[in-house]
Every structure is written in structure tokens, then in C-alpha cells.
């Protein structure tokens, strides 16, 4: 039963994070805030993956003190997440670099006022 609750709570948290981040992106008044809202949206995928890879009561897939093949949580999901968390940080850096460019070019960081098509 508690495992079911964890699953559905995980789905709900993932959906909630996604919508919160999206709300942040849509109502954003500053490009840095917009980039950070995007990280919130991305965090929702981590929660979703964590829930999918979760097996109730089982340890991490590190077979140092237990025999190979004993039940453990899903290693594929963990591998996906750990690379993605690191890569995401550099992608956010790219977005922030674009933000710096936009601010230099238009002297504003408000996405509503940025008119990048202007000469």
C-alpha cells in the first residue's frame, strides 16, 4: 500500500513541478528567472524517473556487500539521471550566456520587452 502511495505521490509531485515551472516561464519578468523556471520543469522529469526506477525496500544497485543479481533498484534509470543532471547544468549555463547576450544587445532582461528582431 505504502508503495502505491509513493508512486502516486511521485506522479503528482512530478506533474506539480512541471506545471509550476511552466507557470514560472510564462509569467516571467526576468530572463534569469525564466532559465531557473526551466530547471524546475526539468526537475519534474527527475522525480518521474526516480519513481519509475524505485522498487520498494530495495537497496541501490551497488553489489559490494551483496551477491550479484540480488534485487536492487533500476540502474538504467539512475544512469540516465546522473548524466542528465550534470549535462543540464551546462545547458542552463548556455541559456544564461544567451541571457547575457540579450541584455548586452537590448539593455533589458525582461522577456516581455525584448524585441530581438530590432536592428
Amino acid at each position, binding site marked *: 500500500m505504502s*508503495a502505491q502511495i509513493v508512486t502516486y505521490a511521485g506522479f503528482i509531485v512530478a506533474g506539480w513541478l512541471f506545471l509550476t515551472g511552466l507557470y514560472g516561464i510564462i509569467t516571467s519578468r526576468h530572463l534569469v528567472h525564466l532559465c531557473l523556471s526551466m530547471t524546475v520543469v526539468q526537475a519534474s522529469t527527475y522525480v518521474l524517473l526516480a519513481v519509475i526506477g524505485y522498487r520498494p525496500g530495495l537497496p541501490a544497485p*551497488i553489489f559490494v556487500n551483496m551477491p550479484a543479481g540480488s534485487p536492487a533498484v533500476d540502474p538504467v534509470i539512475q544512469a540516465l539521471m546522473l548524466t542528465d543532471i550534470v549535462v543540464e547544468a551546462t545547458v542552463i549555463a548556455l541559456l544564461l550566456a544567451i541571457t547575457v547576450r540579450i541584455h548586452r544587445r537590448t539593455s533589458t532582461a525582461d522577456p516581455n520587452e525584448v524585441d530581438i528582431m530590432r536592428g
Partner: protein
Amino acid sequence: MSRGWRLGVFLAGAAGLVFLFVVVARPLPGPLELRNRYAEEINTRAFRERNVTDAVTAVNFDYRGFDTIGEEFILFVSVLGSMFLLRMTEERGDEILPDAAEDSRDVRSTDAMNLWILAMIAPKVVFGIYIVTHGQLTPGGGFQGGVILATAALMLYVGEGFAVFRRVVPHGAVEFAEAVGAGGFLLIGMLAWFWGKPFLTNIIPLGQSHQLTSGGTMPLISVSTGLEVTAGFVLLLYGFLQENLTPRGEK
């Protein structure tokens, strides 16, 4: 589009999304019923076939190493893109604004704090290298350790300012390390070709399990990834610091 309109569109879309999400998520099996054959196979085989005790690293650097190359090059390209964008604003010589760097330092930190920060660098480097090299045994690997190593460089800046940072971590060396890290992964993958095996086949002797040398190519790929991640993050640090601390050119 006005703010109100935009919010309205968002709320309509969000309502639809919530509805679809519930419809999709409700019939999904919970973790009790969920069985992933692939995960179970890897948990069993990582130790028997590759002599490694961390199945996650086995997935990252061996069984799905090709995917990890993709991930690593996303990292590489976004660092490249950031550097390019930050350099476009940079047509402005090599001088640093001494005031910006020095002033903020005097305001924010004391000698005791600087000393503490500097004292933390060595343990951080050791810990980062430990995490990078022990990925095949315990949780860790190039990605996690690389980030830890990069924070050591950040610490150096926080404690000593940009001038010292630039002297201790020369820009050219970091760029070189990044290229070596990114290329190293590909070269280790190509090594298999000399034995007529497919790309990224684990051709190096697998060694004794529970030992640092276990896992064949995995520790090597881990080190090269660690180099790439460390250098990538330090380059980003360089880009943003230079952007902040050098004079603005014409504008």
C-alpha cells in the same frame, strides 16, 4: 499578448494537461508490479560479465556507453556555445577590472574565511579524484567527480579572486584538458577497432573485481569523462567571470 490572456491560455492548457496526465498515469503499474527485465539483467550481469560492483557505472560507461557519448557531447557543445556567446561580447583586451574583483572580495570575506576556503581545496581535489576513479566499485564516476573537482576551482576564485584563479588554472590548459577529455572517450571506444571489435567494446582485461583496475575500459572512460566535465565547468566559470570582470569595451 497581454498578461491576462497569456495566463488564460496557460490555465486552459494546464487543465488539459492535468486531465491527460491523470488518464495516462492512473493505469500505470506501481513499483510492486513493475518488473524491468533489462534492469534485472544488468544487475545480474554487471558483476559476472564485467567484474564491476556498481551497475550504474556499468550502464553508463559500458552497456550504454554510446548513449553516454551523446550526453557528453551535449555537455561539450553547450560549453562551446556558452564560450562562443560570452566571447562575442568580449572584444576588449586582456586587462581585468581590478576594482571589481578586489572590492567585492574585501567586502565579503575575511582572512580567516579565505584560509578556510583554501584549506578546503586540497580535500576537495582528493575527494573528486577518489569519486572519479572509484566509479566502477562504489557510487561515483566521471560525471559526479568532475563536478566536485570543478568546485575546487570555484573555491579558489572565491578565496583568492580572479587574478590568482587565472594564474593557477591557465585558460589554455583547461581548454586542452577539455579537448583531451572529450576526445579520450572516442579514442577509447575506437581502441576496439584494432581487435576487429565494434566501437566501445570492452577490450581491456577486466581485472579482479573489487579492485581499482576492475572493469576494463570503464575506469579509463570514467577518468576521461571526469576530465571533460571538470574542464567544461571551469571553462564556464572562466567565461562568466571574464564577462563580469573585464571592462565593457564600447558600450
